[in-house]
């Protein structure tokens, strides 16, 4: 069994108070020789992971080389997206392959959704304690 790692909720606007706190998870993404420390919004309502355009570029991804088209919904539906696979590491857990819809949107947070972040990690939310815990799949107590 692996001990869960506990994270605190964060305020993206930094000042609006307790109602504005969200579950942002620090993740290290890597693709080929590029390594990027980022934070992703844990979004259980999101069907997929979403990678904002600038982060994809920082990971060395080239839009024209991504041939798998992905059709998103909501506000992201109006912009094209491509499927990409990168490595993601949470805390000191073993890295996993994360599939993202790489969108051309630039003003969106990195979203960690059902496919496939929540398929790889078990997450317990303790909103009343302003915290959440993450464990690799199948290793929670």
């Amino acid at each position, binding site marked *: 069994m692996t001990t869960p790692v506990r994270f605190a909720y964060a305020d993206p606007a930094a000042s609006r108070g307790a109602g504005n706190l969200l579950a942002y998870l620090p993740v290290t993404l890597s693709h080929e020789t590029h390594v990027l420390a980022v934070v992703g919004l844990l*979004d259980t*309502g*999101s*069907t*997929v*992971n*979403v990678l904002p355009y600038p982060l994809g570029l920082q990971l060395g991804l080239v839009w024209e080389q991504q041939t*798998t*088209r*992905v*059709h*998103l*919904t*909501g*506000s*992201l*539906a109006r912009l094209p*997206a491509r*499927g990409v*696979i990168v490595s993601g590491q949470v805390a000191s857990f073993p890295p996993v*392959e994360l*599939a*993202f*819809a790489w969108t051309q*949107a630039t003003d*969106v*947070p990195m*979203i960690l*959704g*059902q*496919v*496939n972040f929540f398929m790889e990690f078990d997450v317990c939310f303790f909103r009343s304690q302003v915290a959440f815990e993450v464990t690799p799949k199948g290793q929670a107590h």
Partner: protein
Amino acid sequence: MSLTELFPAIKMLPRADKLRLMQFLVIDLAQEEGVPLLSAEAEYPIWTPLNAFDAADTLLQMLKTHQAEP
């Protein structure tokens, strides 16, 4: 002008104007308190790709193919 003087005039207003007055007061008080309000004219994005099942299937197929590669 005092509130007591205003009441008869407010009472004479048509229903639609009373509702507009209420709306005005709520917005005015919220702005004084610094409470952000949604505006009917503004567009608020919903970034969450809810029910994007085609996208999910596509990504799962990509992962399957990727993991099957030597």
